């Protein structure tokens, strides 16, 4: 599996993101969010963490929470295509 995570993230951030993703695909949404939030605490500029929290919140039907997270992702990476796609869908575009 390729991973497009930028190299300037610390190993700890990468590991936590991977753990969060594991929880997410296992359907453990709250645990997944907890891992991604740890990343945000370490590095508030980690767009991947915000994006993943957005994805989990959307899966949990928390649209407004997901929207905020996608917006945050786009503040850091304005051309994040998947975040933009999901945000547009939630807003109704």
């Amino acid at each position, binding site marked *: *599996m*390729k*991973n497009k995570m930028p190299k300037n993230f610390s190993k700890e951030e990468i590991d936590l993101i991977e753990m969060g993703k594991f929880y997410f*695909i296992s359907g453990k*949404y709250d645990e997944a969010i907890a891992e991604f939030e740890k990343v945000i605490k370490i590095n508030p500029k980690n767009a991947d963490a915000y*994006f993943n929290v957005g*994805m989990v919140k959307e899966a949990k039907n928390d649209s407004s929470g997901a929207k905020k997270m996608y917006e945050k992702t786009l503040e850091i990476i304005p051309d994040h295509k*998947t975040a933009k796609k999901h945000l547009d869908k939630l807003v109704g575009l």
Partner: protein
Amino acid sequence: MEQIAVIGLGTFGIVVAKELSKKGIQVLAIDTNEQKIQEISSVVTQAVVSDSTDEKAMRELGLTDFGAVVVAIGDNREASILTTLILKEIGVKNIIVKGLDDLHAKVLQKIGADKIVFPERDMGEKLSEMLVSPNIIEKIELSPDYDMVEVIAPQSFIDKTIKDIDVRAKYKLHIIGIKRKAPYIKDDGETDFKEELLIAPSASEILQDGDAIIIIGRYADIDKVKKL
């Protein structure tokens, strides 16, 4: 292949024409505005500049061979009524007209419109329902008493089986489907999820966080569940 004509290319008419084209229907788009016709010409089978209140022009389009004609004129009630009348005179089989208000709808019914739709009214009802009950995703009225509703599964239902929740006995409702998110990791490492539909779930099915349930029942009973 079925052919459908759309008369009037306002926002509503354009969406109807585009969506029908996407579904593989042969669409004839008609409007008096040349620019609008040019804009839609690449999307539909045929687009013509024509005045729908001109009976001769309408006869020449061969609309009697069409499965349906949608009158989507939204800003001119006289033109809408006259167009409907002409289509009826010509012998068009299925005339669907965008209604503007009750009086307009009554006139349309008297002159033989087969179906009158109110997109703004329907959307207004849907939006108000959405604002009052944010947990309701979709609602279909099956009869004046019974609704089919897609609703976010209440937190108290999560991690329980359908048998344990027992909505049939407690609320006189039937869960006929579950919409469930299936998260996955794409080849590039990014997360995403698909939505799966479980039709007629078994009693042993456990509801999960993020599930939406599709239920059938009386409106008053559904109301109790959406407040949970």
